[in-house]
């Protein structure tokens, strides 16, 4: 439960996860595989969706383990996370929808 007794292995575990995910992202970015880069899905390529999912995986590890939020009391965890989970997708939806609209209207 508490990290004080566990030693350091969990830190290095997260380090390797972050490193491997970043390496995969860079490799995909350099190679740009035709099958996933060419497939369109929900307004952008499948490759971009993969990038976004991998980024969210990295973010989750940083926030929950490095920043220790995963080990805080549940009420506090959601006090911090919920405003972000509600406001950021809302903001993105409005601005990205308006962005594509102004592209078609130009």
């Amino acid at each position, binding site marked *: 439960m508490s*990290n*004080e007794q566990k030693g*350091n292995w969990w*830190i*290095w575990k*997260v*380090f390797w996860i*972050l*490193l491997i995910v*970043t*390496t995969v*992202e*860079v490799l*995909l*970015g*350099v190679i740009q595989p035709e099958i996933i880069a060419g497939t369109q899905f929900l307004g*952008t390529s499948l490759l*971009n969706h993969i*990038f*976004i999912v*991998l*980024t969210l995986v*990295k*973010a989750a590890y*940083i*926030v929950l383990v*490095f*920043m220790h*939020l995963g080990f*805080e*009391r549940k*009420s*506090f965890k959601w*006090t*911090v996370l919920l*405003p*972000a989970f509600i*406001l*950021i997708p809302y*903001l*993105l939806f409005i*601005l*990205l929808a*308006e*962005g*594509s609209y*102004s*592209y078609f209207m*130009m």
Partner: protein
Amino acid sequence: MGQTKSNVWGGGERPYNVSYGKMMMWFFLLTDALTFSGFLAAYGFSRFKYQDIWPEAEVVFTHFPFMHGDHPLLFVALMTFILIMSSVTMVLAVNYGHKMEKKKVILWLSLTIVGGAMFLGSQAWEWGHFIHGTEEGRILADGSIIHGANLIMNEYGHPLFADYFFFITGFHGFHVFSGVIILIVILINVIKGTYEKRGHYEMVEKVGLYWHFVDLVWVFVFTFFYLV
């Protein structure tokens, strides 16, 4: 007394089980996260609006120190690695703070500062290359040639790309810079034994939260500026 114990919100204890300072650091980071989301969402707006003439980052950032030719994403991958590494040394410092091992806190905190400084240096190099541009430059309609990018013109494509690049990576870089300054202050306090006397190293933990946040923002900047 038994009643306050049975009811977390009944007073007499910390309902969230975190100290005041740590909670405020989290609330600050939440607002800061919303600020950065606003910037990146605005970037997304312009990118969708000018999707035909938006430059591709793989074409713009292809340089690597002491190497010739095109190396897309390589340098920024190195910068990401440096920042992840400095995040790891920060957790180690916090972890040894819990165990009250002053010498190891000093060691890992110092390495975190070195990582932050290396990142800032890399960013300066990256900015320098972007500002100076390529040898050939771009020929405009009136026959004049522009090299590199600034806030008004951009050799590689739409000027807004350069504006967002300077603004967002600059704002992030300023966070890294302030982080390095705060880490140095905290390191001096650790060396002086302030937290040893206080009985806990919570201050290191709070700065650690800020430092991880800087890494977190970079993860998103990396994706939305360089990959997507």
